[in-house]
C-alpha cells in the first residue's frame, strides 16, 4: 500500500470515540437488517406466488394459440400440439409439460345445474404439474384409457347433490355452434381445501374432450421449468424454438393480475428500502459531521502541512468503508436471527387473515417462507457501504473547506 499511515490514521480514528462509532455501526446494521429482512420476504413471497400459480395448474409458462391472449376463448386449439409438445419436452430447463383443452359446459343432475369450465387433461402429465388433483375425497383421478368419466370438485358435487358413480348430464356448445349432449360418470371427487377452487374443478381426458367438442387436440400446453428464477428467459427461448404460429407466454400473461400485484409490491418495497437507507445515511452523516467538527483543528493542521484535498477525502472515505464493512456485518448479525426462522418456519398468513388464499383459480399456500441465501451477504455489504460512503461525502467536503490559518492560533480553533 502506498499510504499505509493514511489507512492506519483513518482506522484508528474510528476507535477514538468508540461509543459513537459503535452507534453508527449499529445504526447502519439495523437499517441494513431491515432491508435484508424485507428483501428476503419479498423474494420469498414472490417465490410462493409463482409456486402457487404453478402448482394450481398454471405452470410457469404455456404455449397458447396466437389469439388466445386477446380473446381468452376456451375453444381455441393449437395448430400442431403434438409437435409443440415434443419441442417443449426436448428443451433444456423444462421440467414438466401438460397439454390441456377447455370448453364451457353445463352440468346437470335431476333439476340441479352448474356451469363450469371443463378441462381436458393428459392424466399422467397433470399429476406432475398440479397439486389440486392430489387429494380426492372419494374415488380416483382419471387414467388415460377412461371413457365417459369425469372428476369434479366437492363443491360442485354438493351443489348438484351427486355422489360417486352418479351420471352427470353434460351440455356443451361444440364445433360449428350446435349444442352437444353427453352422459359422464363421476369417478372421483376432489377436495383441495378451498371451496372456491373446488367449485371450478371438472376434468375429463383430452380424448374425451375431443369427442365431446369435436375440436381436435389441445388448447394449450402448460410448462414447468426446473428453475423458476429464469422463467422469462426460458419462455423467450421456448418461443424461439417453436418458430410456429403459437407463441410461448409466461404466467404473467396468463394470470396478469398476479403479475401486476408483484410489480406494485416491488415498487412499494423499493420505496421502503429507500426510506430506510435515507434514514441510515442521515444518521451516519450527522455523526460523521460532528466527528469532523470536533477534529476541525486537526484538519487545519493537516491542510497547513500541505495534505492534498484528495488525501483528505480518502482519509474520510476509508473511515466510511471500514464503518460500512462493520455495518454490513452488523446487518447480517442483527438480521439473520429474524430471517432464519422466517425462512425455516415461515410466516402463516392464514392466522392473520383466515379463509381461502385464492385468486383467479390460483390456490396459494398461506405460509410464506423468507428467501434466505448467500445473496444476503453481498446485499448487506452493498447496502452498508453505499450508506456510509454517501454519508461520508458531505463531511468530507466540509473537512476540505477547513481554513488552515486556524491551525496557527488557538483562538480560532
Amino acid at each position, binding site marked *: 500500500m502506498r*499510504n*499505509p*499511515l*493514511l489507512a*492506519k*490514521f483513518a482506522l*484508528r*480514528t474510528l*476507535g*477514538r470515540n468508540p461509543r459513537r462509532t459503535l452507534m453508527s455501526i449499529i445504526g447502519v446494521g439495523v437499517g441494513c437488517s431491515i432491508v435484508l429482512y424485507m428483501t428476503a420476504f419479498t423474494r420469498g413471497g414472490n417465490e410462493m406466488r409463482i409456486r402457487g400459480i404453478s402448482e394450481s395448474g398454471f405452470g410457469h409458462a404455456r404455449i397458447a394459440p396466437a389469439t388466445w391472449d386477446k380473446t381468452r376463448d376456451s375453444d381455441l386449439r393449437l395448430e400442431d400440439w403434438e409437435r409443440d409438445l415434443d419441442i417443449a419436452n426436448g428443451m433444456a430447463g423444462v421440467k414438466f409439460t401438460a397439454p390441456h383443452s377447455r370448453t364451457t359446459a353445463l352440468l346437470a343432475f335431476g333439476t340441479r345445474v352448474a356451469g363450469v369450465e371443463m378441462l381436458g387433461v393428459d392424466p399422467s402429465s397433470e399429476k406432475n404439474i398440479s397439486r389440486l388433483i392430489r387429494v380426492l375425497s372419494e374415488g380416483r383421478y382419471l387414467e388415460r384409457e377412461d371413457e365417459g368419466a369425469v372428476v369434479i370438485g366437492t363443491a360442485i358435487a354438493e351443489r348438484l347433490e351427486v355422489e360417486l358413480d352418479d351420471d352427470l348430464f353434460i351440455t356443451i356448445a361444440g364445433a360449428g355452434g350446435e349444442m352437444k349432449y353427453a352422459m359422464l360418470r363421476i369417478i372421483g371427487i376432489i377436495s383441495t381445501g378451498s371451496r372456491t377452487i373446488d367449485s371450478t374443478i371438472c376434468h375429463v381426458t383430452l380424448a374425451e374432450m375431443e369427442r365431446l367438442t369435436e375440436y381436435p387436440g389441445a388448447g394449450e400446453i402448460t410448462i414447468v421449468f426446473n428453475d423458476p428464477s429464469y422463467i422469462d428467459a426460458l419462455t423467450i427461448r421456448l418461443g424461439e424454438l417453436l418458430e410456429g404460429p403459437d407463441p410461448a407466454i409466461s404466467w404473467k400473461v396468463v394470470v396478469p393480475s398476479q403479475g401486476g400485484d408483484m410489480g406494485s409490491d416491488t415498487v412499494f418495497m423499493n420505496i421502503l428500502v429507500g426510506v430506510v437507507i435515507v434514514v441510515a445515511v442521515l444518521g451516519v452523516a450527522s455523526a460523521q459531521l460532528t466527528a469532523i467538527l470536533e477534529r476541525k*483543528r*486537526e484538519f487545519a*493542521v*493537516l*491542510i*497547513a*502541512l*500541505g*495534505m*492534498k*484535498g484528495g*488525501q483528505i477525502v480518502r482519509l474520510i472515505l476509508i473511515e466510511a468503508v471500514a464503518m460500512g464493512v462493520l455495518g454490513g456485518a452488523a446487518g447480517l448479525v442483527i438480521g439473520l436471527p429474524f430471517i432464519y426462522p422466517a425462512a425455516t418456519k415461515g410466516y402463516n398468513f392464514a392466522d392473520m387473515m383466515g379463509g381461502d388464499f385464492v385468486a383467479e383459480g390460483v390456490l396459494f399456500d398461506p405460509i410464506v417462507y423468507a428467501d434466505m441465501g448467500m445473496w444476503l451477504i453481498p446485499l448487506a455489504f452493498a447496502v452498508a457501504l453505499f450508506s456510509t460512503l454517501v454519508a461520508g461525502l458531505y463531511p468530507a467536503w466540509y473537512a476540505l473547506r477547513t481554513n*488552515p*490559518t486556524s*491551525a*496557527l*492560533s*488557538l483562538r480560532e480553533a
Partner: protein
Amino acid sequence: MNTNLVDVRGVTKDFDNGKITVNALRGLDLAIHEGDFLAIVGPSGSGKTTLLNLIGALDIPTSGDVHLFGHDLTAMSRKRRAGLRLTSLGFVFQAYNLIPVLTALENVKFVLELQGVDGGRHERAMSTLEDLSLGELANRRPNEMSGGQQQRVAVARAIVSRPRLVLADEPTANLDSENSEALLIMMRELRDEHGMTFVFSTHDPLVMAHATRVVTLLDGRVVSDEVKNAGEAAGGAN
C-alpha cells in the same frame, strides 16, 4: 535581494467581520534571510500570527506581495501553495498539533508519506527522532507524552523533510521554562548545523534571548528590527 528567503513588501491584511473591518497589517515590509533565527514579537493583536500565516503560504495578503523562495505567493493557486508548504516549509504550532492516533514515529513518517517519498521513510523518520534524542519516544502516542516532548516531536516532524524554512507560532506558550529552553536549544542546533531558517512569533523572553534577530510589530507595522551578534544570541545555549 535575490538571496532573501522571504520578501514581504507593502503588505496589508484586512479582516472583514460583517460590519467592522480589522486592519491587521498596515503596510508591512520584512526580508528574511537564510539562516535567520528570527523572533517576531509585539503586543497581542499586533499582527504576528497574521504575518506568519502569510509567510507560511496559508493565506494571501489584501494588498502588497509576499515572495517565498522567489515565488510570488499572491499569484499561486491554493493547490500550489499547499504543494509549497508540503515540500519547503515546516510548521510547529502552539500546541495539540500532532495527530493523536499516530505514534511519534508515525507522525514524523506521515509527512514523508504525504510528500510521496517512496523508500526509507521509516529509517529517515527514526534517524530524525534519534538526532533530536527522541528515540525512546518513538512508539508513544501524543497523549503519552508531556507537552515539551510533544513539541519536540512536532519539531522533528517539521524538519524531517529538511525544509528551508520552519515557522513556529508561539511554540513555547504552553511549556515551562525548562522545556522551552530544551526546545530552543534543539532548534538552534538545527539552525547552526544545517543552516535551517527559523521564524517564531512569541511573547517569551527566552525565545528572544535565543534569537539572532528580533522584529517588533505594533499595530500591523514593523517598529524595530534588531540583529544580535552570534555570541550574544547563543549565550543561553551553552
